Structures are given as C-alpha cells and as structure tokens.
C-alpha cells in the first residue's frame, strides 16, 4: 500500500508546474469559501445580535389577535395579566429579563418642527442588558429614576436637530382614542447600525408610555435569555407557563419576527451557495483536464502496469489518490491562505457601509471551523470526483493498445 501511495504522490507532482497551478486553483477556491463565509457570518451575526438585543429580545409574547393583526381595536390586543406572566417567567433561571413592551406611533415636536415617529418602550429597571446594547453617540441611556426622558435614534435626531438634553414633546392617541401629550428631555442619541430603526425610532420608559397611553397593560412581553442557544427550549417552557395563565397568549422566537434578518441571511446564503458552486465547477473542470492529460501522457505506463498484472480497480485507485493529493495540497494551502487574508483584513480596519446600515462597519473576517470543514470537504470531494471519470477510462484501456505508447 505504501508503495502505491508513494507512486501516486510522485505522479501527482510529476508535472510540477501543472500540479502547482491546480493546487493554487483549489487553494484559491477553498480560501475564497472560508473568507466569504467568515465575512458574511460576522456580518449576519452582528445583525442578529443587534436585532435581538435592541429590538426583539429572544422571545416575544402577545395575544393571538396581536400576531394575527385581525383586530381594529388595539386595546383588545393588550395583555392585562402581564405582571403575573413576567413574575412566572422570571422563575426560569435561563431567562435574563422579561418586560412588557408597547409600540406605537406619535408626533415628536421640537419647537415648530414635528415628525411622525415610532415609539418603543424600554423598561430601564428590568431590561438592563437590552438598554446597554444601544450605543450612545451622545448623552446617556434611559434611567429608571428619570421617567420623563426619551432616547432618540441618530437619524431621527439629525432630522429634528436634537441633541442630548434637548426638550421635546410627544403627541399621541390613547387606546381609547383620546389625544394626549407629554414633555420630555432627550437623554441621549443612540445608534443601532440599522438605518431604518435609527431614522424613525424613539425609546421611552415603559411606565411613562403607559401613562401617556392611559393603560396599565402591555402589547407584548419581551424575554431576553442568558444564552441564545436556549431559545427553542425556553420557548417550550414558556408555552407551558402561558397555558396555565392565559392560553390566548402566544410566544414567538426572535427569528420568526426578525424579517430584515431573515431576508439578509437568506440572501447571503443563496449568494454564498452560488459562489461556491461556481468555484467548485471551475475546480472540477480544471482537475478533470489535468487528470485527463496525465492519463493521456501515461498511456504506455498504464498498459505496462496492467500487463504486469495490476487490476483495473488498482488503476482507478492510483488516479483517485493522485487527485486526492492535489486536493489535499490545495485545501491545506487554501486554509493557510484564508487565515492570512483574514488576519490582513482584520488588521487593516477597512470601513464598509451595507445597504440599510446607518453607519459604516469595519470588515471583520472570522475564520470559522465550520467553513474550514465545509471548504475542505468540498475541495477534496470535487478533486476526487474530477478524477473518477478519467481514472475509470484509464482502467478500461486495452492493454495491447496502451503498450504501443512509449513511456
């Protein structure tokens, strides 16, 4: 066996220039896959964290009518027993926080200027970790002891010329349709990197919002977990808790709600798959050509070993081994290349603005074990696959015909 492997290894590098070109091609494909996956993973996981931490939490609870958006009367969507639900939920050690949430629209005014805004509540006392995830470019986050402060998104603040400590007023309708207004001080200007959110959103303490809307209930309950991995398991536990309190309350995971995240991650997945397919097709054709050429050049040699008594399967094995060696060389070089590229890009801190982002982010490439494994298996699999057809053809050669070719 060792001699066979030795022969295959030497044959794989018999034509050095051609073999190196192939190895370089496989390496480029492998490196491209690892780098591309690492880049998109970093981007997608950043978007996921931002979505979960600043908008959705890990789980959201609301009445069936809220999720189905059937009711014309928003008041019917309110969860009245939310305090009890929150108390029960917090008994689960895997839950970091659980807080009520209201989301509504209002008119934000500074002096003579007014703008329609989306107002989202935050409970500074309970949602400490969520509160921390808003990056404040100016001023401070909401505080439990300062109920009449609001935090404003960066884009929105720019449009209204707001700064930390600016005075604003909010005008909205209560759930009973009565117009209500309150004066606030801007605690700070935040940025989440999602332009759509930063351009139109304002954060307000939950209790103040309830006063403004004249209710003691909430529309949703946001649940944050200590670990994202527990999401599905906790969802099942929460469902069991809700069955005993109010079966009409339904729970959804962040993934079910985060439309933007789903669209972006799906787009990236399709894009990655297309790129990988094209790269692997190129590798397949290149290796098929190389092994085919090699077989043509070694016709006499194949005839000789067959004459000596080598079986067809052994000839196939030899060419597959040669393909495997090229693949191994390419994969190892590709992984090394990917690590170097990742380190280079990470050190250069190149800023890039994505569509829908409110601020540039730095290109960060994470070299993922899963991407290395995927690229390696693809690289090796394709090289072996590319060698199968020519190797099979070689094994079927007529010995007498093959011996006519000189070695």
């Amino acid at each position, binding site marked *: 066996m*060792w001699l066979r492997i030795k022969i295959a290894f030497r044959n794989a590098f018999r034509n050095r220039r051609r073999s190196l070109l192939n190895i370089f091609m496989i390496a480029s494909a492998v490196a491209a896959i690892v780098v591309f996956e690492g880049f998109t993973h970093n981007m997608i996981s950043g978007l996921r964290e931002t979505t979960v931490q600043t908008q959705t939490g890990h789980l959201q609870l609301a009445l069936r009518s809220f999720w189905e958006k059937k009711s014309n009367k928003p008041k019917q969507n309110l969860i009245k027993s939310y305090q009890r639900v929150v108390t029960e939920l917090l008994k689960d050690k895997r839950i970091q926080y659980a807080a009520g949430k209201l989301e509504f629209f209002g008119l934000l005014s500074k002096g003579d200027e007014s703008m329609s805004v989306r107002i989202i509540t935050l409970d500074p006392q309970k949602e400490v970790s969520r509160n921390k995830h808003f990056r404040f470019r100016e001023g401070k986050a909401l505080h439990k002891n300062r109920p009449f402060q609001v935090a404003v998104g960066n884009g929105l603040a720019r449009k209204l010329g707001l700064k930390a400590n600016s005075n604003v007023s909010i005008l909205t309708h209560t759930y009973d349709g009565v117009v209500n207004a309150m004066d606030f001080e801007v605690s700070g200007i935040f940025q989440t990197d999602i332009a759509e959110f930063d351009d139109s959103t304002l954060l307000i303490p939950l209790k103040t919002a309830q006063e403004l809307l004249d209710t003691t209930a909430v529309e949703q309950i946001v649940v944050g977990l200590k670990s994202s991995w527990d999401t599905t398991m906790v969802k099942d536990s929460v469902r069991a808790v809700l069955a005993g309190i109010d079966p009409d309350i339904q729970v959804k995971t962040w993934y079910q709600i985060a439309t933007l995240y789903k669209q972006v991650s799906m787009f990236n997945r399709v894009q990655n798959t297309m790129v990988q397919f094209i790269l692997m097709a190129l590798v397949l054709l290149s290796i098929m050509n190389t092994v085919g050429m090699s077989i043509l050049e070694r016709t006499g040699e194949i005839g000789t*070993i067959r004459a*000596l*008594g*080598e079986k*067809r399967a052994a000839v196939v094995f030899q060419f597959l081994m040669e393909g495997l060696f090229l693949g191994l060389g390419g994969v190892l070089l590709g992984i090394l290349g990917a690590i170097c590229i990742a380190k280079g890009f990470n050190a250069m801190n190149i800023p890039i603005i994505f569509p829908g982002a409110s601020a540039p982010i730095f290109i960060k490439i994470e070299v993922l074990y899963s991407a290395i494994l995927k690229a390696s298996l693809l690289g090796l699999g394709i090289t072996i696959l590319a060698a199968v057809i020519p190797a099979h053809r070689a094994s079927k050669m007529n010995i007498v015909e093959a011996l006519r070719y000189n*070695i």
Partner: protein
Amino acid sequence: MSLKSVPNTLSLVVEAHRVSRTYSIGSHCHQALNQVSLEIRKGDFCDIAGPSGSGKTTLLNILGCLDRPTEGDVLIEGVSTKKFSVNELAKFRSENLGFIFQTFNLIPTLSALENVEYPLLLLSRTYRSRRELAEEALKIVGLENFKRNRPGQLSGGQRQRVAIARALVKKPLLILADEPTANLDRKNSIEILDLMSRLHEENGVTFLFSSHDPLVLKRATKISYLSDGRQEPIPSEERMKDVA
C-alpha cells in the same frame, strides 16, 4: 514446426492451439494470425521469428494473456484461458508471467529498486520480502549499485537489465520478451542476451522471445517462424539474414 527444435520432455508451460486473431479496421478485416499452434515447455529458450508485420507481437500478446484470440485456445499448464475474466487474467499474469518490452517500459517516477519491487507488490508480499527479492534480482543483473537511480538516470542497456530483473523477481513460469534488443546497440544487445542465456542455463528460466534479431535466433533452442500470420518452415540461413 521448427528447424532448430530441441527434443524436450519437460512439462508444457504454454500451448497455443490453432490460434487466429482478426482485427477490424473500419469495414476491412485484417487477419494478424491464422491457425497458429505452438508449445512452450519448461526450460525453453524459444523465439517467434518473422519479418515485420508477420504477427510475432500479436502471438506473444496472446500467449502472455494480454490479448484474446478470435479463434483457437491458449492453455497454460493445460488449463484453457478462454473462460478467464479480465481480473483472473490479470491475477494469472501477476503470478506466472514476466514481461520484457522493446522500450523497457519502466515506471519513470520509481527508482530501479522500486520498479523491480512492483510485481511483488501485486502479489501482496511484505515490504521486507519485496526489498530482499528486488535487491537480489538487481544483483543478478549486475545493477546493485544503481538501485536508487530512476530510469532517466540509466543507460538503455541498464534500463533493459532493470526490466529483466523486474520480470525475473517473482520467479515466473515464463518470461515473454518482445524484441528486447530492438532499442539497444550491438554491444548492449549481446550483453543482455548473454544475461538471459545465463539465467536460462543456470536457473532454468523459460523465455519466449518475439524477435527477428540474428543474435536472438542464434541463441534460441526453439524457433517458430511466422509470415503473414501463418506458421511457415524456417527459411534458409541466408534468407533469414535478409529477413533480419
């Protein structure tokens, strides 16, 4: 059958029985061999002679189980090869036959020692046994000091010696040599044939040549003459020289 036949009572190694071989070239059929019969016994130093295109190599290929006859049968130690599968023939060749080719046909990526070792690899011999036998075979052909050299680093004569060692190493039933001196100069041809003669005389190795080289004809203990695919009586020495 042959003018220079030496009576041999030893056992039959290979027997060609009314063998014919026809090739189709487009719509045309070419008969390369026509009803040829031949017996090779243990210890023979036999040559299939004849002019170019007479069917020598075709007969050698059929006797070496590299090709199948269109008609007739080849019996190895009395067993018909007609019903052997491709893999059974390969196994048979690896166990019983040694080949020496006109163009040496050594594997260029292997050293002389590894080339000689190769047929033993097909017999699943251990590494140590392979090495010992291959070194011994190289010693017999006088190339023990060139065992690390690759074919590209050897002369034509040396390469043919390595090929002889490769054919010899597994102690086969029969060694088939297809024009072994065709690519060698006279001095090397004589040396190679002397080596083969010595192996035949001292070790009793059975050789079957396909050659019209007078040097081979002079040494052969049995000659079968072919012309246009048919067996014919061996022509006079003068005519043989013309043919050669």
